[in-house]
């Protein structure tokens, strides 16, 4: 069953076509990757899916499973990002966007706001419902921090964390929104081979434990080839190839795009 589909999505800025006729189809429970040289429009595609940009034309369709296990396909094209997150699509950012002045725990707690079921009035009065909600949220978030190895740092300012841990915090924060689909924008950027290996394991485990579908932009080809079920290759906004890692690896267009444009992208 498809979890996320895009139909002929085009995103144009002035005269520049950043994404041209994007058609993706991500099945529930798989791990898909979006690759391509710098400036190919990968992050723009993410921004269209998460509602940061409204596409010039085309549709984005998402099929969440509700509490009763029922599924309905919803057109999320151009919906507000917070609404889309509320339906079950969470993301991380390529250029880390943590809430710098807040603590690690607070960063994750922010992401539970959409599930808070008490009003600001009961928050101001510390009504029992608010107290219970706060306690529950805190427990959930501490659990997530534990999972991502950040629990000892929970009271540190987010900006004081080392780079790799900031990336982990971004993932913890995204998980706190209770997503069904997780979009990771270059989660391994700037990491050394050992850290990348650890991250690969982690992503795998999180995917199983939280019953996630993952869609990931990544430049580390080892990582991508190792863990992806499906790969989409973008170049100059166009999808030049899609398929399993093997199919994509041997596709001459892909080799040309990488070797021809940016040879050291596979570092």
């Amino acid at each position, binding site marked *: 069953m498809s979890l996320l589909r895009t139909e002929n999505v085009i995103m144009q800025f002035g005269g520049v076509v950043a994404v041209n006729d994007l058609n993706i189809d991500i099945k529930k429970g798989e791990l898909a990757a979006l690759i391509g040289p710098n400036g190919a429009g990968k992050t723009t595609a993410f921004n269209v899916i998460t509602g*940061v940009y409204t596409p010039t034309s085309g549709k984005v369709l998402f099929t969440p499973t509700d509490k009763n296990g029922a599924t309905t396909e919803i057109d999320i094209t151009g919906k507000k990002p917070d609404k889309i997150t509320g339906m079950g699509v969470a993301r991380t950012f390529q250029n880390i966007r943590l809430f710098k002045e807040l603590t690690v725990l607070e960063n994750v707690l922010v992401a539970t706001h959409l599930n808070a079921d008490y009003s600001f009035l009961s928050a101001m009065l510390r009504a029992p419902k608010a107290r219970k909600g706060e306690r529950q949220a805190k427990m959930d978030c501490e659990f997530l921090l534990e999972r991502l190895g950040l629990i000892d740092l929970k009271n540190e300012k987010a900006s004081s964390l080392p780079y790799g841990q900031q990336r982990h915090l971004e993932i913890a924060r995204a998980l706190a929104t209770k997503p069904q689909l997780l979009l990771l924008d270059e989660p391994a950027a700037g990491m050394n081979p050992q850290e990348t290996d650890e991250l690969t394991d982690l992503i795998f485990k999180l995917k199983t434990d939280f019953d996630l579908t993952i869609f990931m932009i990544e430049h580390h080809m080892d990582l991508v080839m190792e863990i992806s079920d499906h790969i989409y290759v973008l170049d100059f906004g166009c999808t030049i190839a899609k398929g399993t890692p093997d199919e994509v690896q041997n596709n001459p267009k892909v080799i040309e795009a990488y070797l021809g444009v940016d040879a050291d992208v596979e570092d």
Partner: protein
Amino acid sequence: MVVGMTMETFLQQLINGLSVGSLYALIAIGYTMVYGILRLINFAHGDIFMMAAYFTYFGIAVFFLPWYVTFIITIGLTMLLGVTIERVAYRPLRDAPKTSLLISAIGVSFLLENVATYLFSGKPQAFPEFPLMTTPFFIGGLSFQPVSIVIPIVAFILMSALLFIINKTKIGMAMRAVAVDYDTAKLMGIKINGVISSTFAIGSALAAVGAILWCMKYPSVLPLMGVVPGLKCFIAAVIGGIGNVKGAVLGGLILGFSEVLMVAFFPALTGYRDAIAFVILIIILLFLPNGLLGKKQVEKV
């Protein structure tokens, strides 16, 4: 609805609206240029206008200088004031959070108002009349103040000159580049500081001319005279599309005409004259948030 409005008075009101609108346009340009480059509401701009009015007042009424000398000194001092404000209060905060910059702008505005009150007293000072400009003349039964005709002409000449500078000269190209993409412009070797200083100099010079013409039309100066025109002209810039010089002119004219005509058609609303700008602002923000000539802003993620 139209209360005792003849064709003659209507024409007169149109001319009046054109001159008020041209004054607004001159001040609005300063707002729009600074916002275009620094993304800052230069709250002090209205007070720079006020200081220019005092410079003129001192030149003519206190030191009895010839009018042309006064005008040159006024324009020079006002440019110096604008550039100094940017240098002292805005430049050190260029990498600070935007809120700090905004507070600094408000602080400068407040400081100028208070310094003016302290030095020149809070009481309005009468500006000497300029008989050449205020003695009405008649055309076919219509009486006009020469100043109402002079203002749009001067404004038109200055705006054409400004558009020439922006579109045809090197510094103008640098300004446009910085407005489009600050960081890239910097990387391309554009001297950002010089560009920003020139922007403040030009904006302040136009405000100075606006102040001189304003004082001929409304002959009185006081420390808080810049506040309401300042707010209105920022709104004019928003109406036209902030960051767009032609838009600022268009917005200024629309605002000028709306005010004058509203009072002319509905004399009962005279007390609310200063409120119309804000009503227009709310309407524009609701339906045309990028203004009449503005482009949609895309934020980089």
